[in-house]
């Protein structure tokens, strides 16, 4: 029996987290795994924190990843990355966009946005920081940020074949955006 894989994708409402987790699940399924995912809708849609748990393996029971068990935490917003570091497994990997979206608590002065890079360095968290805005602008499409991140994650999820990833992306994006999304995936994978 192969080891269960646990992934968390996090960020803020409207960043494409749910789409990214759909692609990951579809790719895992296409590679022959049982797969489950869980997320919470509702109030989270109004710019709040959003997260999706994805688990795949031979047979999945719980839809939720346990603290201390995540193989990969993918963050589309860098402060949100910190919110989930306690879920990382001993050999887990954090993959973070260098994007900061200030919550209203920071905007209105009741809280201070943390120095994310310093905290990551101080605590020795194994992290890959991706200049996602830069790459997305180079590719000429800001909506591919989540796919760049999945590309980077794919190196830590070798059970899923490249063919499955490509099919999953093709299934989820409009035909005219397929090429740019594929390029985004490759750019992420090369990081």
């Amino acid at each position, binding site marked *: 029996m192969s080891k269960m894989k646990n992934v968390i994708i996090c960020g803020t409402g409207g960043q494409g987290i749910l789409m990214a987790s759909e692609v990951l699940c579809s790719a895992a399924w296409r590679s022959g795994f049982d797969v489950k995912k869980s997320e919470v809708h509702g109030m989270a849609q109004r710019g709040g924190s959003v997260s999706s748990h994805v688990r795949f393996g031979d047979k999945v029971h719980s839809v939720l990843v346990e603290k201390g068990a995540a193989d990969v935490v993918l963050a589309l917003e860098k402060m949100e990355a910190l919110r989930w570091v306690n879920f990382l*497994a001993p050999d887990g990997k954090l993959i973070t966009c260098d994007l900061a979206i200030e919550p209203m608590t920071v*905007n209105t002065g009741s809280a201070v946005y943390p120095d994310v890079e310093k905290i990551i360095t101080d605590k020795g968290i194994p992290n890959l920081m991706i200049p996602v805005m830069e790459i997305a602008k180079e590719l000429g499409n800001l909506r591919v940020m989540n796919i760049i991140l999945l590309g980077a994650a794919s190196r830590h999820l070798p059970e899923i074949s490249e063919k499955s990833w490509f099919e999953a992306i093709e299934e989820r994006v409009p035909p005219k955006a397929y090429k740019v999304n594929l390029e985004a995936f490759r750019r992420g994978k090369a990081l």
Partner: protein
Amino acid sequence: MRKKLNQVDSGKLFLSGNEAIARGAWECGVHFSSSYPGTPSTEIMETIGSDYPEIDAQWAPNEKVGMEVIAGASFGGARVLSTMKHVGLNVAADPFYTLSYIGATGGIVIVSADDPGVHSSQNEQDNRLMGRAAKVVVLEPSDSQEALDFTKIGYEISEKFDTPVLVRVTTRICHSKSLVEVGPRVEVPVTGYTKDIAKRVPIPANARKMHARVVKRLADLEEWGCDSPLNKIEMGDKSIGIITSGISYQYVKETHPEASVLKLGMTNPLPWRLIKEFIDQVENIMYVEEGEPYLEERIRSKFLVDGIGSERLSVMGELNPELVRHGIKDGEKLPLTFEEIALPGRPPTLCAGCPHRGAFHTLSKMGASSTGDIGCYTLGLMPPYNALETVVCMGAAIGVLAGIEKAVGREKMPKLVSAIGESTFVHSGITGLIDMVYNGNTGTVMIMDNSLTAMTGGQENPTTGKNLRGEPAPVLDLEKLVLACGVKHLRVVDPHDLPEMKRAFVEEFEREELSVIITKRPCIMQYKPKRKTIAVLDPEKCIHCKICVKLGCPAISWDAEKKIPVISEILCWPNCNLCTQVCPKDALSKDLEGVV
């Protein structure tokens, strides 16, 4: 292009619990569905609307009407479905309880989507208790496959035993996805309406007989449940026997695969013989259930057996694998690689361009506030507005305002309006307004008309001009409706016209008679503007007063070094100009010409 799901007849689909319930209803030939949206149930109806045209589906003004309409459709011999969030069942409780007595001609499945953990609700009530109190069958699926299967079995039970069936799901079932084996739709005939007064008119003489039938029905179902595959014993290590249902079962299997488990898929009526068989075989009993200690209390009191449950696993919040791992075997948990880091919260906020912002900003600036209701505008409670002070339930903004006036009197009445959305007003606010007119209240009701049921993701309602499937529908005229209630002072205001919005509040607070303000501006989810414009800052003119930041717009952040506002080009909403209006030095400008 994605195929519509009604074009898929077999194989595996990756479905959420909600999508699986819709699929189950479709496969077993359901004819009709009527519901009101509510997180986490909404996507059941949305999926039927988008993918299963064979089911005649519609949005009801509220859950009670939805349940009454499906009751009638069942009397007409159709298989029917109504879905709602847990608190929606409170609204529909009146028809629900009596429908239990009347029974089902065409099969009746009612879905209650409970929200333990209060992700998007006002309480975490456990509707297994509602099902038991109404003496109907309660089914609890533990994943998407069971959500589909149990829905289908629900219709068999409903028609075989002449009972409504309550499928009780929770947020983690509704919004989790897993692989589901699907099948084709099997049509069943609509058997037609036949007159049966003794069955459908619960006057006391009939109701007594009906109740006797319900009691007998429960006894029959209890026996049936002992041999049904809905309930099963999975024998393992006999030192511990875990009794569980719903999503909790998955956490048990994940963390303690070796344990003996009694998985209950039907939790009312309980299969006593099967339960006895299980508890006789195990040394220690443990209850793992989310919400109230429902199984625990019933089984303990029935057999007078010890067991552990709610004192180890809280009655509050959601369960998760950590809690269950630790709850079953003390001290057992995974080591953490990194500790939790304390961070600023990221609460939900009104969207950039949201029409409600103009109203709450104005109230806040005036030192005024509101009695609130349930919808996006509940977020008026948040800083920087702090302009919404009460929430009770759908529609209560109006009654609560009326009651405060009755308690303190017109003279001591604080500056409060009722803040209620148009969908919520139609749901159950209108009766409050009728009460205010009838009983001589003098307050101001603000109906926030954004022409969409927005908080649940954007559904149509009787005021939007479209039905569930997006087809044209008659538009409910809110202004005429308000006047017909006997309101003498009504005005309609664009909440983004700040001087006008302020004038409306000032004048209505002074008026010694009841008035209604309708704030009318569409939700940003309603349309895509033709041209993208963003607010532009002239830094020379900026006096660093932060008034624009105090709008609480997510598109405006503060650059602490340069002491100027920064406008997000991604978030700034094209046809909104609130920040340009509040800036005292005209440092912010926006070209709105041509933006529709």
